[in-house]
Structures are given as C-alpha cells and as structure tokens.
C-alpha cells in the first residue's frame, strides 16, 4: 500500500459531480482495480461454500469417505481463500476510502487558500466546513462500495449458473425470488429514511443546545437563576429526540422483521420445491441442502447492491457540493506587473477618499464611522477593487502576491491558528528571537507569553480560544509586527486593550515602525496622539489633516469623534 497523503492531489475535474467522482477514481485506479479483484475472489469463495456443503452431504449419504474428505478440504480451502481475500479486500477498501477522502480534503484546503478573502464573501464557511465533516465520508463510501458491489454481481452470477445447471426450475425460483424479496422491502425504506432524517435533525439540534449551554455556562452561572430553565428546556428537547428515536425504531423493527419474513417465505418455497424434486429423485438431498444454503447466502450480495445504490447517490450529492466550491473564482485579480520596471513603492494613495499614506512615517486615519475606515483599508490592501496608486504604479497592475507581500492589512477579524505560538506569530518563518521579543514588547503581549506554561513554545488551541479578546488582539498585533511588511495597515488595533497598555502600545508602535510606512485606523486619542500625521475622514472623504493636537484645536468634528465630549 502506498503511503498517504499524496504530495500533489492534482487538478480536479470539477465540470460535474460525476466527473469529479470519476477523476478521484482514476487517480486511484490501481488500488481500486486490485480491491475489486480481491472482492470478486472473496464473494465467489463465500458463494461456493453452500455448494460444497451440499456435495459433502451427498458424499456422506453415499458413504464415500474420499469424496467427503475432498469436500471437507474444499470447504477449508474456500474458507482460507475467503479469509485472506476478504482481509485484503478490506485493506484495499479502507485505502480507497481514505485515499478519496484525503484527496478531497487536500483539494478543498487548496481551493480555500486560493480563494482567500473571497471565500467568506461567496460561500458560507459552514458549508465548506461541512464538506470536511460529512461529504468526504460520503465520497469515501462511494469508492468503498464499488469494490463490494462489483464483487457481489460476480457472486450472484456464479451461484445462479451453478443452481440452474443443477435444476432449472429451482435455479430460476432462486434467481427471480431473491431480487423480488430484496426489492419488496423498498417501500419501507422511504418512511424509514424520513424518520431517520427527522431524528438526526432533532439530535443535531439537541447537540447544538448542549454545546450552547456549555459555551454560555460562564455567562449563565455568572448571572444565575436560569439553570433550571435551561435544564428543563434541554430535557424537553431530549424527550423529543427520544420519541423520534422510537418512531425510527417502529419502522426499523418492521424492516428487520420483513427482512426475515420475505427471504423466509422464499426459503420455505425453495424447501418445498427442493424436497418435492428430491422425493422424485430429480435432485439429491445434498442439492436440497445446497439450494437452501444458496438462497440464504444470496440475500447478502443483494443487500450490497441496494446499499451501493444508496451510497453512490449520496456520494454524488456530496461531490456536487465539492464541485460547487471548486468552481468559485477569487474576486480580485492581480496584475501581471508587465510595466517592466519594478514598482519602487512610495506614496500609497486611495483616490476615492483622498487618503494618502506617506512612505516612512506613522499615519493615522480617524473616521466618523468604523465602516469608512474598513472600506479604505480594504481598498489600500486591494481586498476590494479601487483606484489606488502605489508610488507611480496603479496598484491593480501589480501581481496580487506582490501586493500581499508588501502591504499587510491587519484587522480584528484576522484568525489565530492552532499550533506552537512561536510559529503562529512568525508567519514568514524568518524572524529571529530578538525580532519576536521586540514585536511582543511593542504589542505589550509579554505578560500573555509569561503566563503560558511553555512560553512561546506552548501549543495554542484554534482561534486563540483560550485567550481573552484583548489578549487575542495583542497577539494579532505582535504577529503583524513580526511580519514586518513594507506597508503595515492596522485597523483598530487597540480597541479591546486597556488604556495603560494602549498608551504603551502607541508609544512603542511609533518607535518600532520608525522609518517604515504605517497606517493605523483608530479613534483612540492615545494612539492618534503618537501618529506623525492624522487624517480625519467623514462620509468617505478626507475632511482634515494635521497632527492630533492641531486637529483637536481646529476641527471640532474630529474632537467630537475622538473624545466623545458632548458639546
């Protein structure tokens, strides 16, 4: 077996769900073919056991010891083949399942990083996440069932041929009867699936309710009084799940009964016919036992075919969701940078608002509403299309990768990833110990690191879950500073930090970025006071420029925005 994952998942064929499934299948064609081979051998070995047992009964009847020994040896040999081929089939099935699931995870993860900022705008992240939670399993199932389904067809054909050669009427009875009895339970499947669906939905809601209680437990216990209400509400939903479960069981139990009754009727019929023929000496008693065994056996491959229809359908639906995500394109395209000369950088200017970020100094934008500053930052960082110049080159002429490398927009929606904190802060992988220490110092984040059991080497959970809002904000700031981009744009970097720390951060930020281009969007007077140049924006355009103190004195609207004084 090859080792997983493959280094390069390849370029998926996303033209349709079927094409995607076929692409996945082609990529693992070898293991798939080998698995199908084992499955065929496995099924046929199982199918032949009842026939060999029937022959054994005949040998006993004839008191033919050598024939009996041969039959015994054949049963053992079939058992050995079945055990070995069955295990190999299982191994290949698991490999194929995982291979398909892993490959899908890889292409989805690569597509997510290709879409980047576009992803949350075009598709709910929940939808993409659910690909990981359920769709990959369905795609794996679809590949897995292929092995057994193909094998079961061979088993059915083998048994049928042998039975018909022994007795045409009996063989035909089994051949026609087994599919009918298998299909006859189909009417039960629809209500069963519906009730299972209801049950799953309710169960999902109940889990969400429980998770909700746990997530809000501190809040709940902090205010108090609501515990009984929540317990009662949970119990109410839990009882609903219970009753839905019983409703599923009431259909399920009928199905299980039917799955005994229907083949049972066929078995009774086979026994009747077989015994009649045996009495007339048309077949031997051994044949009768073989027919009985074969009729019982055939139920399994027939069920496998039903299962295959279901799993392939579900795999198709899952592939549909995958294909939909794979067909999304990033919203903002980069330029080719074909102007020949490399962009020298320099003044970063947003034409729409008039905001100009001068190279090498610390600029601040104070906007009357937070949305305005976010819009400006997004245009300057080219997350949305806009008329922006970087030095003497229009920003949209530069390749997007270059824009991202040179201009970093750090906002409060930025995610913290799970991993060793040191690696998560040093995104370029090039920072020295001193760089990291300096960035943490600037962001006033040393106390956070100090409180961790292993300092910078501690593993942190996803989304920085164990950190408070203010701590997350300082860690994000430290990360942006460590990246040390040519132009750093910070959006409200201290909104959740206490005034003492905010004052220190503002001081240290000005020093740490001295000589580098920095833009901070904020309304905090502590930060604005440290900026070299402050721009006041209202209704999307620049209204005033100057230092914080100058603007406080000359622009009443600015003063009102940043100090929130009445009058």
């Amino acid at each position: 077996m090859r080792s997983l994952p493959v280094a390069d998942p390849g370029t998926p064929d996303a033209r349709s769900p079927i094409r995607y499934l076929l692409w996945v299948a082609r990529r693992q064609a070898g293991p798939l073919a080998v698995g199908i081979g084992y499955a065929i051998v496995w099924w046929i070995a199982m199918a032949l056991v009842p026939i060999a047992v029937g022959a054994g009964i005949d040998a006993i009847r004839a008191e033919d010891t050598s024939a009996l020994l041969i039959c015994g040896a054949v049963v053992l040999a079939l058992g050995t083949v079945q055990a070995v081929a069955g295990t190999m089939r299982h191994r290949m099935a698991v490999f194929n399942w995982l291979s398909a699931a892993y490959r899908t995870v890889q292409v989805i993860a690569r597509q997510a990083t290709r879409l980047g900022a576009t992803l949350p705008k075009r598709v709910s992240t929940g939808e993409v996440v659910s690909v990981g939670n359920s769709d990959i399993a369905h795609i794996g199932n679809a590949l897995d069932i292929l092995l057994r389904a193909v094998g079961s067809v061979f088993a059915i054909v083998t048994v049928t041929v042998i039975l018909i050669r022994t007795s045409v009427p009996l063989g035909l009875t089994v051949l026609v009867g087994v599919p009918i009895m298998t299909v006859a339970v189909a009417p039960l499947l629809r209500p069963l699936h519906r009730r299972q669906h209801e049950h799953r939905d309710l169960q999902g809601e109940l889990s969400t309710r429980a998770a909700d209680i746990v997530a809000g437990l501190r809040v709940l216990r902090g205010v108090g009084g609501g515990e009984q209400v929540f317990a009662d509400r949970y119990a109410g939903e839990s009882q609903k799940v219970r009753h839905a479960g019983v409703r599923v069981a009431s259909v399920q139990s009928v199905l299980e009964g039917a799955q005994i009754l229907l083949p049972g009727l066929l078995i009774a019929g086979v026994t009747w016919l077989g015994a009649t023929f045996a009495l007339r000496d048309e077949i031997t008693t051994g044949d009768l036992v073989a027919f009985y065994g074969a009729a019982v056996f055939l139920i399994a491959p027939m069920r496998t075919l039903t299962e295959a229809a279901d799993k392939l359908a579900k795999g198709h639906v899952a592939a549909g969701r995958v294909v939909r995500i794979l067909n999304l394109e990033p919203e903002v395209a980069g330029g080719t940078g074909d102007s020949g000369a490399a962009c020298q950088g320099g003044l970063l200017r947003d034409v729409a608002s008039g905001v100009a970020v001068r190279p090498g100094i610390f600029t601040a934008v104070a906007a009357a509403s937070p949305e305005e500053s976010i819009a400006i930052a997004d245009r300057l960082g080219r997350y949305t299309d806009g008329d922006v110049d970087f030095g003497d080159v229009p920003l949209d002429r530069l390749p997007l990768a270059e824009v991202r490398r040179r201009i970093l927009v750090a906002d409060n929606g930025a995610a913290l990833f799970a991993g060793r904190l040191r690696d998560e802060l040093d995104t370029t992988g090039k920072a020295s110990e001193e760089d990291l220490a300096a960035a943490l110092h600037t962001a006033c984040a040393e106390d956070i690191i100090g409180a961790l059991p292993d300092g910078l080497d501690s593993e942190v959970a996803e989304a920085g879950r164990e950190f408070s809002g203010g701590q997350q904000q300082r860690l994000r700031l430290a990360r942006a500073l460590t990246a040390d981009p040519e132009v750093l744009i910070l959006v409200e970097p201290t909104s959740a930090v206490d005034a003492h720390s905010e004052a220190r951060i503002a001081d240290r930020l000005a020093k740490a970025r001295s000589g580098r281009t920095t833009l901070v969007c904020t309304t905090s007077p502590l930060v604005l006071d440290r900026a070299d140049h402050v721009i006041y924006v209202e209704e999307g355009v620049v209204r005033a420029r100057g230092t914080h103190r100058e603007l406080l004195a000359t622009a009443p609207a600015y003063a009102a925005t940043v100090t929130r004084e009445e009058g």
Partner: protein
Amino acid sequence: MSRKILPVADQAQVRAYARRLTLRYPRELAVTLTLHGLAAVAGLTVPWLLGGLVHDIEKGVRVDVAAVALAVAGFLTLQALLVRFAVLTSSRLGEKVLAELREEFVGRVLGLPLSTVERAGSGDLISRTSRDVDALSRTVRYAVPETLIAMVTITISVGALVLAGPLLMLLALSSAPLLWFTTRWYLRRATAGYLRESAAYADMTDGLAETVNGARTVEALGLQERRHRRTDTDIARSWAAERYTLGLRTVWFPAVDFSYVIPIAVTLVAGGLLYIEEWVSLAQITMVVLYVQQLADPLDRLLMWIDELQVGGASMARLLGVAEVPDDREAGSGVPDGEELRADGVRYAYREGHDVLHGIDLTVRPGERLAMVGPSGAGKSTLGRLLAGVHGPREGAVTVGGTPLVELPLDDLRGHVALVTQEHHVFRGTLRDNVLIARPDADDARVRECLEAVDAWEWVETLPHGLDTVVGSGGETLSPAQAQQLALARLVLADPHTLVLDEATSLIDPRAARDLERSLAAVLDGRTVIAIAHRLYTAHDADRVAVVEDGRISELGSHDELVAAGGSYAALWSSWHGTSR
C-alpha cells in the same frame, strides 16, 4: 492547550454505573431479552425441520412436504414478528435510558461550581458534551442491544447444538480457542487505536475548518503553503492511526473468518465419518452444519460491536467525571448586614507561590461607582472575580455586610453581587429568553425597559420578529457589541445591589459605549457599580478611580484628585485627552 481540570471516573465507577443503568428497568429488560430469545428459538427450528426432511427423504419415509414447508414458513413468520417487537421494545428501553443519561449529564454541567467553570475553559467540557455524548448514544443505541441480542442468540444456538448431539457440538466449537485468543489480543489494542484514529480524523477536519474560517488571514499573511503543509501533516497523522488499526484487523479478521469455516469443515467431515460408523444420523449432521453456518452471524455482530462498547465506556468515564467536581463553597450561617462590599488584606494565587494580588484593601461604599484601571495582567480581573465571589481569597477576606462572599449560598450570592465580563454569549432561543435568564417571570414591559437601559431597544425593534426573533447559533446573528448589550440587559433585569462589570462594554464602538454607560448609570442609580474599564471616560465618569498595578492598588481617589496628584493616572489622562483641556 485546554487545561484538563475536570476529573474522569475510574473503571470501577463506570462498571458500577453501567450495572445500575442496565438494571434500572428490570421488567423492560426481561421482556426485551425474552422476546429476542424466543425469536432466536423460532429461527433455529428451520434447520431442524430441514434436517428431519433430509433424514426422511433419505430413509424413504413418507413425508408431507407441504406440511414441512408450511411449518418452515410459519416459524420464520413467527420469528419475524418476534424480532419486530423485540427490536421495538429494546429501542424504547434504550432511548429512555439514553435520554435520562444525557439529561443527568447536562444537569450536572449546569450545577458545576463557579470556580471550576471559570477555570476549566470550555474546550474539555464541550468535547464531553458533544463527542462523548454522541459516542455514548451510539453505544446505548446500537452496541448494547446488538451485543445483548448476539449473546442471547449464541447461547440459544449452543443449546440447540447440544440438543442436536453433544458430540457434534464439541466439534462445532473446535475453533472457539482460536477465536477467543485472537479476539482478546485484538481488543487489548483496539480501543486505544480507535480513540487515536477518531482524534486524528477530528484534527484533520478541524484543521480544514480553520483554513476555511481563516481564509482571508491566510491570504493576507501568505500562509497558503503553511496551511497546505498543515493539511498534509494532519492527513499523514490520520493515515498512521488508520494504518495501525488496519494492521490489527489484518491479523484479527482472517482468524475470525477462519474460525467460522473450521467448524463447518470439521462437522461435515467428522460428522460424515461418525454417520458411516452409524453414531449419528444424517438429520443431525444437516442440522449441525446449518447451525454452525448460522452461528457466524450473531458472532460477527458480537465481535463488531464489542470494541464500540469499550469506546462507550471511555466516554462514560468522562461524563461521570463531571459529577465528581467537589462543591467549592460551603454555605455558612452568616447573614449579610448591609450592602457594603469590603476587601481586607486580600491575596490570591492561581498557582501556588505565585500571588497575583498582594494584600488588597478596598471598601466600596454602597451606591458608589468605582472604576478600576491599570495595565493588562495587573490583577484587575482577578480582583473583580474575588469581589463577585467567584473565587475565595487565599488570604484575607471579601465580605458583603460583614459576611464572607464565599460563605453565601450561590443563589443568595447572586442576589447581592453579579459579574458581567467581556465574554459574551448569545443563547439559542428568542431574544426575550436571552434577557429573561435571571428572572424568567418578568413581563415584556420590563424586558423592554432593560433593553432600553442599554440602548438596545432601537435595534431590537428592527429585528424581523422583535423580542420573538430567534437568535444565537442557527438564528439571527448578533454582533459582539449587541451581545454585550444583551448581557448588560440581563444584569439590569437581575438587579443585584452590586455589579462588577469587567470590560463589559469593550466590544461596543467607543463612540456608542459612552452613551450606553451613561444611560446604564441612570438605570443603575443607587446600585453599587465596580467597572473594570480600558476607556478612560469610564474612569472620568466614576465617583472614584482605583489604579491597579502589579497586584496592588497604587492610587485611589476621585478623577480630579488623581489628576491633581500627578501620578500615573494623571499622566495617562493627559495623554489620552490631549492638550485641549
């Protein structure tokens, strides 16, 4: 890095609990097992009838074939009916027990002591409520009944084999040792293997979720390669875990399959030889060979579910563990005399030997507004939690009206002091439910007043169904600022005489926060408010300001006094406020 401070029950406790659970409804359990047993008996009559038929045909005895065939049909119909009711009754019982199990667990979670909840972080508890409850559901719903049924069927089949012929039965059990030893070998290793496997799989899907949720950040910081590597590492880890269990099965499966086939061959050959010696009849051989073939099915079920039972046991241990958290407060007999909140010589440490508060003395006058400011990590939040009675001090005392907070029963405590932190949570339910938490009996007019007091009524009115709008996960999404407003509205409704607000408005736009604080102040007039704040206007608007630095109160006084004193607060203020004043 979620700190695992919640206990896990030990094996003996799990076993004892499982036993109690199984025997909680002895009548239902007996009915279920009887039905399954009868169904197995009905199923076993068919090979018996067939054996008789073979025998009679062979001996040339006149047989009524139709009668035998009808008997076969009759017994199988009976079996089908019995199975139907057996499955139904066992599901009823299973669902009932399962519902009780999860309700008991959530009840225990809701009763967890405050200090545990504050410290445990939610990661561990969430994984217990989701993964472990799910795993246990699977166990109770499928694994327990399947193994019980399989054991009943196997017992009855072995009984039938004895009836068919003890000598042949011994031959039929010829592979039992092989099955026994390989299964033991497998089970010893399986549980840990499967737990690792599902943890690695969950890591992989979590990693994908992280990449997706952080897609913009990935683009901004150029983390594409890193995320691809993370995905591939997760997959490699999952593959390693899968390969381990696959290796176990590669050994075990052939042994199991083989042990199903050996008895068929052995009973056939040995039975045939015994027949030739006229020790057994053809009917007996037919019966036994068919029984042995049929035995594979319940055995398979038993073996397939038995490791699921172990996984369920591990989940059960974690669920039961929650019940073992000791209560953190012992109610005393003292009754508070007055509303004065005092801290005397308070010291506190999260880790032994590392005090974060070094002897705090503070008297909060009833009805005053006290602001606490200071750098991050200075101990403001810790002091806030102590003043709200969440933790008890290591040394010294925090009292209300002379009675230590930690000696008040929890419900009484909340009548005195309540805490709202910047941590916010919108519960699934209507907006009204979210406000009503503290006082479920309040009417809409009161709810509206509370929402108005926190400047929230304006946006509540614009929601599609006003107070009836469903919010929280799956419902209307509220912004963090709106969530904080809801938390404050809850507190206004709860109406304790003292409130500790720890950065309770930090997520609200600075421009709106001050308005909110002012309207809140009007509603809370006469209440004692301790506000830990990072915005200085909160301090400016307060009656007194306490500057907390390095676990001590370094400055205490009114805004004007502190500004006049020219300490660290004054420096901060002048910098914050610029020079316009």
